[in-house]
């Protein structure tokens, strides 16, 4: 017994040492050179759908995918530290807000010279392609593209005798006061104004709907100039909270997710929300007001000629490290095409799956006429016409710049100081404009 036990132990130790040595000597070069693997980094969203499609990709291409994800709140920091440390990354999800910063740091590779990917531009919405383009170069294919929608609770409107959605911000005040006076709900308008992920999109949507911009075409900040939309927008929100009392003063501590629950519970009549939330808002298992929530066109400001809103996209980007290596580049291109373009079935299967499973809108125009897509919008939004019309009016955030993140920190505090009635719209927007100038010169 003993000799065999000793032998077995020796064999075990020998095997362990060999494995350890092999891992020390061989793993890194093997990983770097392995031609049949893609390192894909994403935030923790649509995880089940991504894993399912990764399975389909691995099956179809025999290329292994090393998938890792981080929570959205920590994603940018996690990815930046990994990029700085030159960690093995081939493909990653990128927000359009980070594109200038990532492109300037050379963390993303342009796909202009990759025809297998560029061919999808012909079928993509223009604002999506523009959102993936920086200094004339395109940096990826879309994961999804969305815009802020103005949604109404039709039940509350009917109970207050309002037969159509408000078309202007003045009409929003008028309708809200009517609802309030009839005692239907206390705060008819809902805005999630906490310092949160979506604050800049909410405010941008309203600024664009006022016919305004933050930055002029030459890159100079116009946000502090009266008549350019930003001052009027924050003044409207301040008055809605403090003068008309149609928005709860608690809005400054309400993040998007809490607002979603409150609106789904039927506590408010009007709300600005990412369009992909419509599915959850009209799902009876998640919202008591389901079936009564319908999109309307974003109301216009006094100087605006037409409706407008803020759009954004998230996309698949490729790292320069992956592009520089022929094998990694080939795998990464196949992966991006499989997810952001057409897969082996010759259809935009993943983009359609994201919509039908999660409500995430897409950038690919041909899908708009797909029967399943039409049925989806009919079921969850009472039709897709208004969403399609609003999508056409979506504008990319004009404050996207290499210094966007830092400017946004200042802007968030400044917005809230107006919403709290602690600063005038002029003073707060001046702080933002000054910060923009300071950062653009740094």
């Amino acid at each position: 017994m003993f000799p065999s036990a000793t032998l077995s132990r020796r064999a075990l130790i020998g095997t362990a040492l060999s494995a350890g040595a092999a891992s020390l000597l061989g793993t890194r070069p093997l990983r770097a050179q392995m031609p049949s693997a893609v390192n894909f980094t994403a935030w923790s969203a649509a995880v089940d759908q991504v894993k399912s499609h990764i399975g389909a990709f691995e099956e179809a291409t025999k290329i292994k995918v090393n998938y890792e994800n981080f929570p959205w709140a920590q994603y940018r920091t996690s990815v930046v530290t990994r990029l700085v440390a030159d960690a093995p990354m081939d493909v990653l999800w990128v927000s359009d807000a980070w594109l200038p910063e990532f492109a300037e740091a050379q963390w993303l590779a342009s796909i202009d010279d990759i025809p297998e990917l560029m061919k999808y531009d012909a079928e993509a919405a223009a604002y999506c392609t523009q959102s993936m383009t920086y200094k004339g170069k395109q940096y990826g294919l879309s994961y999804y593209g969305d815009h802020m929608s103005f949604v109404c609770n039709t039940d509350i409107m009917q109970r207050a005798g309002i037969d159509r959605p408000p078309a202007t911000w003045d009409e929003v005040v008028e309708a809200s006061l009517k609802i309030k006076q009839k005692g239907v709900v206390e705060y008819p308008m809902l805005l999630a104004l906490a310092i949160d992920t979506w604050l800049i999109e909410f405010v941008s949507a309203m600024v664009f709907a006022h016919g305004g911009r933050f930055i002029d075409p030459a890159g100079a900040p116009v946000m502090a100039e009266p008549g350019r939309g930003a001052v009027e927008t924050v003044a409207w929100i301040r008055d809605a909270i403090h003068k008309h009392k149609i928005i709860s003063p608690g809005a400054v501590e309400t993040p998007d997710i809490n607002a979603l629950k409150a609106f789904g519970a039927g506590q408010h009549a009007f709300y600005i929300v990412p369009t992909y939330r419509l599915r959850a808002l009209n799902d009876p298992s998640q919202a008591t007001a389901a079936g009564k929530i319908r999109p309307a066109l974003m109301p216009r400001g006094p100087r605006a000629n037409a409706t407008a809103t803020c759009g954004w996209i998230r996309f698949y980007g490729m790292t320069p490290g992956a592009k520089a290596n022929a094998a990694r580049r080939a795998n990464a291109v196949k992966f991006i095409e499989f997810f952001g373009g057409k897969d082996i079935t010759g259809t935009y299967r993943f983009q359609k799956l994201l919509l039908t499973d999660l409500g995430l809108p897409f950038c690919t125009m041909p899908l708009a006429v797909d029967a399943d897509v039409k049925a989806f919008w009919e079921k969850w939004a009472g039709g897709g016409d208004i969403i399609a019309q609003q999508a056409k009016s979506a504008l990319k955030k004009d404050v996207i710049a290499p210094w966007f993140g830092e400017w946004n920190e200042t802007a968030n505090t400044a917005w809230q100081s107006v919403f709290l009635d602690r600063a005038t719209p002029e003073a707060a927007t001046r702080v933002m404009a000054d910060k923009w100038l300071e950062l653009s010169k740094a």
Partner: protein
Amino acid sequence: MSGAAGGTPALAAGSAFDRLNRRFGYDERSAALLILPVFAVLAAIAVFPIVYSLYTSLFDINLTRPWRRPFVGLGNYTRVFADPNFWIAVQRTTLYTVVTVTATTLLAVAVALLLNEAFPGRRLLSALVLLPWATPSVVNGLMWKWIYDPGYGLLNGLLTQLGLIDHYAVWLGDPDKTLFMIANAAIWKQMPLAAILMLVTMKAIPEDLYKAATVDGANVFQRFWHVTLPALRPGLMLVLVYETMISIRHFDLFLIMTQGGPGNASYTLSWEIYVETFRNLKFGIGAALSYILALATFSLSYLFIRALGRKLA
């Protein structure tokens, strides 16, 4: 080889080794050898990061601009002191620390006095008092955020039912109240440990002192003032130093409950460090701010120890 080419250094090394042997006995050398691994680990995970962060604070490091990393000397520190946001953060941190430490200490003394008395259910109450301390910080923050919620919060419901308010109030969203509401959540969690520390100190006070004071005609307040309070100094010092160090660097409640807002109402130093380091990715400024906060913490602790420790001696 070493004997031929390096004879003199070898001899020198040998004599140094001999000197060490003569100076330290076997036990001391063995002890040094045994603690060496721990010291090496501590040096790697504690000393090196501290020194390296000081080094980092002398460079203008922005992770989003990896191609540049200029040496700026004390430039990050001068930029911090010239930034109005820093002084706002100092004000908020000072107010929060004063409120939290004062209230925690006073409540802890009161609770310790109660638990020091003999009454039925004292053991059960002692266990219950400790519960908030055992609650994880994140859970504590989320719980209080819900309690304060302006739409469905327990606090509004309770005050309304008691007839104290006729309309749901905004708590965390009101910049005049925010810091105090966060401080309340912190006090709720930190007070139990402080109370136990005080109780342990109280238990060590000789009963004879109280009996002698009673014989001398001292009433309950006089016994507290002249017997209990002076004897509580060791516990007070411990609580004040500990609570100050915790409060001045408090971060988790600010992250969970307000994110520095509304506006800049809860923009404290720890929050500013987080924003500069992990949002703006400016590691140089973040390291400089961290050093300033660390120095402030050490200075305050030193002052407490000097002030109370001298009286103890």
